[in-house]
C-alpha cells in the first residue's frame, strides 16, 4: 500500500474512532446527568456534589455562555441542552423554509444537522432564502448553507447530501436522524418524505408556504410502529392521513408561478425550528444517540404536547395576519402508508414501484389549439413592427392598469393586432407590450357572458368595433393560459370577425427570441 492510501485509511480510522468516542461520551454524560437527577429527586433539594477540585462539567465553558439564554428557561436546563446536543435533525430542502429553520437549529446547538438539496442558489431565491447571499449565486445551496451556518455556530456537525431525495436515498439516510423537517416544494416530495418517515419510525414536521399563506403540521408523532404492531397502538397521523388525495397537477402552483412573500415562508420556517426544539428538549421524541438522557419535563407534559401536536397551524398573511390551529383527527384506518392495512413497505419503495410523479400526476403542458390557431413570438414582433406606424387613434386610457402606455406615432398602413394579455394584474404592471389589453385569465375564465363589463372588456369591444385591426392575439407568461383564453374568447364571441390566435411560448419565448431586455421576473 502506498503512503497516500495509508494516510487516507488512517484518516478514516481516526474519524471513525472519534465518532465512536463522541457517542460514548454522550452516553456517559447521559447516565451521569440521569444519576444526578435521580439523587436530586430523592433529596428534593438542590445539592451539588462535594467539590473535589477537578470537576468535569458536562458542557464546554463556552457552551454555558452560548446557550445560557435558552438553558435558563423552565423546562430546558442542562438536561434540555444535552438532549439538543445529542439530537440529529435532517432538513430536506434548504430554501425559503429550510434556511430560517436551519439557522435557529444551528443556533440552538443541535448536535448534528443533515441537509439535503440538489439546487443551486439563484438570484430569485435571495428575497426569502436568508442563509444565501448575493455572492453565493451559482453555488450549491447546501455548500452556501454550511458556510453561513458555521459562522453562526461552529459546534454542530453539518452533514450534506447534495442531491434531490429519492425513495432509496431517503430510506438510507432517514434512520440515522431523530427528526425530519420537510422543507421541500412539491407534492411528490411531501408524500415521499411522509412514507419514508413512517417506515423508518421518525416523526417529521411538514410546513409549506405560498403567496401569503402557510401551513405547519407535526406528523407521525409518536411514530408508527412496525407493521405487525400497528393495530391498537396510538401514533400520530401521516401526511397521507391528512391529504389522502394529491391536488390535481394542473392546480399545483409553485412559488415561481404564484409568488411568495419572504416573511410568510420565513415565519413558517422559524416555527418549524421552534417545534423541533420543543420536541427535543421536552423529551417527547426518542433520540438515537441520546441513551437515556432525561428531560426536565414530566411524562404528563409530553402527553399534553402530543395532544397539542395533533393540529395543523395555518398562517394567513393577507389583510389582517391571522393564525389558526385546526384539530386533526388521528390516523385514517385505511391509510395506505401508516395504518394496520398499509400497503407501502420499504421493499415496495426500493423497487421503485411507487412512482411519486405518477401518483401526483404530471402537469401536462396545455395543448388545445391547432397550428393555425397559434403564432410564434417572431411573427408577433413582425406584425407589431409592420403596423407600428398605423394610425389607430389612441383612446384616452380608461385606467392606467388596464391599457398599456402607447408611444407610437400614427402614420403608415398595416393593420395592428389586438393583444390580449391574460397574465394577472401584478405581472402586467411589471412589464407589458404597447397597447396590449389586460384581461387576467382567472377573470376571463369566470365570465359567463359579456354583460358583466369591466374596463378591459369595454376596451376590447371598442377596438373590435373600430374595425381597423387584424387578428386578436392572446399572450401570457408561459403560453398555457393564453391557449385556454383563445377558446374562451371564441366562446364569448369576443373576436368578432377577427381570428383569435395564441402567442406560443408566451413572454418566456418573447424574451428568448425577440426582446433580450424583457424583465426576467
Amino acid at each position, binding site marked *: 500500500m502506498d503512503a497516500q492510501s495509508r494516510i487516507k485509511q488512517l484518516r478514516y480510522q481516526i474519524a471513525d474512532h472519534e465518532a465512536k468516542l463522541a457517542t460514548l461520551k454522550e452516553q456517559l454524560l447521559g447516565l451521569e446527568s440521569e444519576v444526578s437527577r435521580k439523587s436530586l429527586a430523592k433529596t428534593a433539594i438542590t445539592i451539588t456534589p462535594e467539590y473535589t477540585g477537578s470537576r468535569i462539567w458536562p458542557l464546554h465553558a463556552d457552551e454555558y455562555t452560548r446557550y445560557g439564554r435558552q438553558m435558563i428557561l423552565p423546562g430546558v436546563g442542562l438536561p434540555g441542552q444535552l438532549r439538543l446536543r445529542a439530537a440529529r435533525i435532517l432538513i430536506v430542502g434548504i430554501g425559503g423554509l429550510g434556511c430560517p429553520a436551519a439557522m435557529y437549529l444551528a443556533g440552538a446547538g443541535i448536535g448534528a444537522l443533515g441537509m439535503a438539496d440538489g439546487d443551486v442558489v439563484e438570484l430569485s431565491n435571495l428575497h426569502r432564502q436568508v442563509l444565501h447571499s448575493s455572492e453565493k449565486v451559482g453555488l450549491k445551496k447546501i455548500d452556501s448553507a454550511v458556510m453561513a451556518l458555521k459562522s453562526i455556530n461552529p459546534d454542530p456537525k453539518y452533514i450534506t447530501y447534495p442531491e434531490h431525495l429519492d425513495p432509496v436515498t431517503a430510506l438510507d439516510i432517514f434512520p440515522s436522524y431523530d427528526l425530519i423537517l420537510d422543507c421541500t416544494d412539491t407534492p411528490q416530495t411531501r408524500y415521499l418524505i411522509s412514507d419514508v418517515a413512517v417506515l423508518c419510525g421518525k416523526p417529521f414536521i411538514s410546513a409549506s408556504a405560498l403567496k401569503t*399563506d402557510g401551513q405547519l403540521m407535526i406528523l407521525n408523532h409518536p411514530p408508527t410502529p412496525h407493521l405487525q404492531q400497528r393495530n391498537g397502538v396510538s401514533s400520530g397521523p401521516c401526511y397521507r392521513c391528512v391529504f389522502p388525495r394529491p391536488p390535481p397537477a394542473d392546480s399545483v402552483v409553485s412559488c415561481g408561478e404564484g409568488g411568495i412573500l419572504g416573511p410568510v415562508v420565513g415565519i413558517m420556517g422559524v416555527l418549524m425550528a421552534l417545534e423541533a426544539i420543543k420536541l427535543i428538549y421536552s423529551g417527547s421524541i426518542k433520540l438515537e444517540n441520546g441513551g437515556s438522557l432525561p428531560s426536565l419535563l414530566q411524562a404528563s407534559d409530553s402527553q399534553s404536547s402530543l395532544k397539542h401536536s395533533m393540529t395543523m397551524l395555518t398562517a394567513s398573511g393577507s389583510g389582517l395576519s391571522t393564525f389558526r390551529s385546526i384539530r386533526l383527527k388521528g390516523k385514517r384506518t385505511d391509510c395506505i402508508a401508516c395504518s394496520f392495512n398499509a400497503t407501502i413497505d420499504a421493499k415496495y419503495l426500493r423497487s421503485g414501484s411507487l412512482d411519486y410523479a405518477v401518483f401526483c400526476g404530471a402537469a401536462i403542458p396545455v395543448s388545445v389549439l391547432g397550428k393555425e390557431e397559434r403564432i410564434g413570438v417572431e411573427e408577433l414582433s413582425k406584425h407589431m413592427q409592420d403596423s407600428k406606424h398605423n394610425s389607430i387613434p389612441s383612446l384616452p386610457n380608461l385606467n392606467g392598469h388596464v391599457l398599456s402606455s402607447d408611444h407610437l406615432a400614427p402614420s403608415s398602413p398595416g393593420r395592428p393586432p389586438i393583444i390580449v394579455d391574460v397574465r394577472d394584474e401584478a405581472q402586467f404592471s411589471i412589464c407589458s407590450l404597447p397597447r396590449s389589453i389586460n384581461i387576467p385569465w382567472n377573470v376571463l375564465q369566470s365570465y359567463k357572458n359579456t354583460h358583466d363589463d369591466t374596463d378591459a372588456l369595454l376596451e376590447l369591444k371598442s377596438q373590435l368595433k373600430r374595425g381597423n385591426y387584424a387578428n386578436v392575439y392572446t399572450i401570457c407568461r408561459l403560453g398555457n393560459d393564453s391557449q385556454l383564453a383563445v377558446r374562451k374568447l371564441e366562446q364569448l364571441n369576443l373576436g368578432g370577425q377577427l381570428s383569435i390566435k395564441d402567442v406560443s411560448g408566451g413572454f418566456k419565448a418573447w424574451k428568448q427570441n425577440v426582446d433580450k431586455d424583457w424583465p426576467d421576473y
Partner: protein
Amino acid sequence: MSLKPPPGFFTILYFAGAKDYTHKEKELLEAPLEVNKLLDVLEKKYNGIGEKILSSCLLTVNLGYVDTTEETLIREGDEVAIIPPVSSG
C-alpha cells in the same frame, strides 16, 4: 375575526388555492346544511371547484376536521374552512 354570522347563516373560509379559485377569503352560506351537500352548493356557485380544489382539500367545521362524506350538520353560526394542501416552500 370571529364576527358571528347573522341568524340562518354560517361562515365559510377559503384558504390558499380555494381563496384564488373563489376570489374570496370568506362568505356566508345558508344554514343548516349537511356537510355532504356543501360540495353541491359550492360546485353550483363555483363551476369546477369540486375537482380542482375540494377533491384534495381538508374540510373543517369549527376548527375540527370532518370527512366530506360525513353526515355532519353545519349549523347557523358555525365556521367552516376549506383548506387545500399547500406544497411549495
